[in-house]
């Protein structure tokens, strides 16, 4: 019964995003870095590979660096959007006055948000892989025909996804609590920058929630890579997400719907 009700909530939640910015954002944002890498490798692939390492190793480095920096912003924007769509349309009271439990409405939105992050990361992985093969078609000598384990890349994306849920839950809750767009964005930028500073030498930087996704990511495409080898930040992230999402769910039961 509860599952059926949740299915209704999720179905309505997905439907409302048609023809919206977030729909295209979830689809196209993961293409941003692969598109730049495609141009870079088509134009200067030889020079890049000549600096050392295999073609796939270079592509993975070119992908993970910018992605680690940009992905938190993506998470913050998606969290803002899935909640401000209700604030801007004045529809919180509409959805909470429907014959579904408050927990159901909350879980529907939370699960769709989590699914958006998951889909984007998987798309990012697949598009990065596609870049290698597209470059191979244009320049077969570059080395993209060498063996490469796609499942390692997708597995790494999945690990990053799990490691993102920690700070992702914070931004989901923040965006539910406030209509203010600047506050969650400011907290996000503060979190990202403070992690980048602290990770330079502070021994407890590994507990910083805005760094879990960076610390869980491994050198895909190299011999040293081993899937599930950096699990501490993933566990920390999942624990944080469980706590924050639970607090948000309890808060939803009590709060006044304006």
């Amino acid at each position: 019964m509860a599952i059926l009700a949740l299915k209704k909530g999720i179905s309505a939640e997905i439907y409302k995003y048609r023809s919206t910015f977030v729909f295209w954002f979830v689809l196209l944002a993961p293409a941003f870095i692969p598109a730049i890498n495609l141009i870079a490798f088509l134009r200067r692939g030889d020079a890049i590979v000549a600096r050392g390492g295999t073609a796939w190793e270079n592509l993975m480095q070119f992908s993970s660096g910018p992605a680690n920096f940009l992905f938190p912003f993506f998470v913050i924007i998606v969290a803002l959007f899935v909640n401000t769509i209700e604030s801007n349309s004045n529809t919180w009271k509409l959805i909470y006055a429907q014959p579904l439990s408050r927990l159901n409405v909350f879980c529907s939105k939370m699960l769709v948000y989590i699914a958006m992050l998951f889909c984007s990361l998987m798309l990012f992985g697949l598009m990065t892989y596609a870049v290698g093969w597209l470059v191979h078609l244009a320049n077969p000598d570059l080395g993209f025909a060498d063996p490469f384990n796609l499942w390692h890349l997708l597995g790494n994306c999945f690990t990053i996804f799990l490691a993102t849920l920690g700070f992702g839950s914070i931004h989901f809750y923040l965006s539910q609590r406030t209509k203010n767009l600047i506050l969650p964005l400011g907290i996000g930028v503060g979190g990202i920058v403070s992690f980048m500073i602290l990770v330079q030498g502070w021994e407890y930087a590994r507990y910083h929630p805005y760094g879990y996704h960076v610390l869980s990511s491994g050198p895909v495409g190299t011999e040293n890579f081993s899937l599930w080898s950096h699990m501490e930040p993933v566990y920390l992230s999942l624990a944080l997400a469980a706590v924050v999402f639970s607090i948000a769910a309890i808060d939803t039961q009590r709060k006044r719907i304006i």
Partner: protein
Amino acid sequence: MESYSIETRELNFYFKDFKALSNVSLQVPTGSIFGFLGPNGAGKTTTIRILLDLFHAPGGSVKLFGKSYETARSAILKQVGALIENPSIYKHLTGRQNLEVIRRMVNVPVSRIDEVLRIVRLVDNADKKAKHYSLGMCQRLGLAAALLTDPELLILDEPTNGLDPSGIIEMRELIIRLNREHGKTIFLSSHILSEIEKLATDVAIIDQGEVLYQGKLDGLRQGSQLTELRVELNHVATAVQVLKTGNFTISEQNGQSLILPIQSRQEIAHVNKLLVDAGLEVYGLSTTAQNLESIFLNLTKKLDQ
């Protein structure tokens, strides 16, 4: 015995230290158009939000169809359609798509969307984006969403707010039709007395969080033995001051005269004496039966504040 779609007992509600509702007890008869009347800020929307379980009242009880939200939230809300203040509409979607979002939540057949669009006369504009809708169309779309589950009870918060005269007439006709032809019980809030007068069979008047009257609309007229006294005189502004000092409530004034509600014939003489003693020249005194507006004003004392 009369059955009630809504029964509240002694609802109290606070916004921090401000008491927004004080012992609000309502009984909305099944099949009625129940007018919930009060000035802006009287507590109408707060009451409605409690009726829809959007706010939780710390004191008192709410029962819809004899059930309480603690035990039967989904079952209650299945039988309730609501339109609360400004329309809740996803502007990037068409009217039909807006209804589809709600339809997916409430699980009714797709054909129901066309039915409710026909009821609110929005079929021709159903596939237009809601951002191109007029306010009247938005209100009708909101009403269509409220009707999707074919609820027994409609709770409408100021449904004519911001509408032009033709929009108001259209909405009024729609509400009457929903009550008479579709058998819906309608709980309708408004701060416009004439609106309630034209629609409601039963009424409750709320001011400063307290219910001042509840019952049949006719009962409000009959219950009031008051008449109005029109006084023509030379200095209206001075007269207003004098009469306020004498504990009278002024319901209307202009350059030449003023109107005040009175309880007895003796008060006519008392008013005259007060004015003459204050050195004012009284040119005429005439009485008329008090209209509903004066009764409302007298109850809420708004003009005096």
